[in-house]
């Protein structure tokens, strides 16, 4: 039994879990506004 039969599904599962995390982030609305956070960063820097 080659290691490939175990390694490939494991690799896909690992990738799949990252995909799931990404999916959850998208669905939770984290990416809805990509402009304001980049602007906010500037503001916070100035505050310090």
């Amino acid at each position, binding site marked *: 039994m*080659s290691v*490939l*039969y175990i390694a*490939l599904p494991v690799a*896909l599962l690992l*990738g*799949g879990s990252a*995909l799931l995390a*990404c*999916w959850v982030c*998208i*669905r939770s*609305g984290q*990416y*809805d*506004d*990509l*402009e*304001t956070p980049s*602007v*906010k960063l*500037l*503001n916070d820097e*100035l505050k310090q």
Partner: protein
Amino acid sequence: MQNALENLNPLTSTTQPCSHCGLPTFCRQDDLRVFCCSGCMGAYAIIRELGLEDFYALRSPRLVTSLEGVAAESSRSAILEDLQAAGVEVHTMADGMCSVRLAVDGLHCAACSWLIERMQPTIPGLKSAQVRMSDHTIELIYDPFRTQPVTVSTRLAKLGYSLSPWTVDKEDNQGFLQQQRDHWAGIALAAFFAANAMWIGVALYAGESTGISRGHEYFLRWVGTVLALFAAIFPGRLFFQTAWQAIRTRTPHVDIPVALSLLMGVIGSVMGAARGVGQIYFDSLASLILLLRIGRYLQFRSQYRTSLSLAHQLRWNAVTATRLEADGTKTIVPASRLQVGDRIEVRPGEAIPADGLVTHGASSVNTSLVNGESNPASIFIGHSVDGGTTNITAPLTIAVTAAGASSRVGRLMELVRNASSHRTPLIMAADRLSKWFVVVVLTLAIATWLAWSILANTAIATQHTMALLTIACPCALALAAPLVITVALGRAARRQIWIRDGNCLERMAVPGTLWLDKTGTLTCGHMAVQKWHGDDEVLHYAAVLEQTIHHPIAKAICAFINLENVQWIRAIELEYRIGKGAKGLVDGISIMIGNEAWMCEQGVLISDEWLALQSSAFSQNHSVVWLAVADSIRGMFELSDPVRADAVPTLRSISAMGWRLGILSGDRQEIVDSVTSLLREDGVPIDAALGQQSPEGKLEVLRRCIQDRNGPCAMVGDGVNDAAALAIADIGIAIRGGSEQALYAAPIFLANGRLASVVELIEASVSVVRGIRRCFLASLVYNAVTMTLAIMGWIHPLFAAVLMPISGLTVLAMAMSTKAFPGTRTK
């Protein structure tokens, strides 16, 4: 006072941008800080008081704030007093706080959001104020017992940001966010499947050249195929769905060939996996789905951006009305909530929100937006007024006779909606080409299979056919046109040309007929003095008297007179008569300004010599205003609505491009004729000049023009009376400065108010069509060459897999390099 006038005169002072808003000022240069007006000075003082001076360091350089709408600010703030009435949703949270989302106007850059959010601690009871730059909204969380949104609004208004009800449909916005999430999720999924399918593909190709065990090859093939199938089922489902819908409604759609090609990829992958030998397809299939999903998202985003920017523009035209209640109080309500029988007050400079009868007051009304008439109409008690016209001189009280959909404007909008829905959908070149493409590829595939079955065996035949189907990629065809148009739309938007319907850009490439509205489109839309007959030394009397009057003619005369030489003396014993003129005492001398009827009424005699001058002015359709000093005529102003400065060069270049030009106006035929002859003198060939056109008449002219099928029919207009024509035209272009109704109707909106942008549009259209053709050509050449090779059986599977994405990327690069709207810098 004289000092103030001097400061206002651009000739006597150097200009330096205002320290607050960046508009030019007329102050001395040695001042440390200069301001264009006391408003900006006040705003600066507030900002400094709050210790927020960093704002000036943070904001974008050369920022120019628009001063438009500042006057209307108070009424806008007032509408927030009754949030329920304004249709704003207020959420009450568990801790008793309220949250509300409002639109912010005036946001430009990081500094704006910073400044607004720093306001929050200065307002007691305001828990948080979060600005969202992507759709220019703000979320206020506040304690309803300690503060109200209207307080925040008044505070922000002082800084130059105005709040208004969030008029973009809440469901629309939710829908957008949902769709955007779907797109991203789809892209993420597709990328996952594509990347994994690709490395499995690499393993197989490597195995082919270095040797691979049978068992491993089968395993890898099946895993790759399953991944590609998932890609087709989840992120690829979108294409099958739209294709299926298109087939059911029998409308050709780009997704039909795309779906077919995906389907072939699926069949190819499964067959390849089942046979276990020969070419693999799953990697191409998965990466094709990824590319298509990315393209689809870019298209969706740019379309939404355009419509959103337009919504921003339109929101500021939201009309409010001042309703007089039975107990004598005044309430400000949205115009849409007016009802028949309501009494409303309309101040000078405000738009009349509904049709009605004047019950109190006398004024003149600018009706150019509704019927194209360039001269203001005089209005007295008992006269009826149309909604959408603008009150000019004095406050009016109006009893509403028709509001909303039943008003004149409402009925015109109904016309617009009908015209829009009758527009036949233009079948894009991509659809036509890809339809043929699919037919050709399918025929060739069958022929190839049959030929190779006879020449060799079915296994080789299937292999070659599959190679053909893989390499034949309609994706360039499907992507090119939308991409080129999307790029052009984005660049246009940065030039303040908003294009809602990308097809319009394609249509303008061929010369056709261009109809132009006169008032406000060809001309400036307001009066200006053309000529002054008389001594210059009496002009300052006219200036002094006219300064006191809010009337377009008075404004025009003041603009004409060089205020530098005016000796500022107060005019006393002023008297006005609507539609006639004014008189007053300046320096003890009686001064009268007005038309012939006014002079006669005042007993001033006009000599025959002067009357001859008047009739020659009338023959050119100029309006005439007399100036009498000490009861004798001393001069005569000739006024007319001047042609826009950029009209002549613009029209010349448009006609040089082969377009026929026509004028379509609601104004009197004589005025239209005089403008036409003026333009013709300047070498602009005007083929037709139609005056006295009702909105319905304009619609009919456009309809006939479209039926002639003599090239595309374009319409440029700015008013309500153009709206229906703009909606039915092949290319409807609304120009800024007019009414929102025209903007709703037209697929193209020139927010920069420049007529010259029409030339840019036509040029952009030509390069867009050229760019699309170039992409098509490249794609067709690629397909012809590679398909021939595949049919001959010379294409190696590895080579096909590499070529396919390269062809797609080439088309992408070509589309991006289209020369539409050149010289527009990207962000």
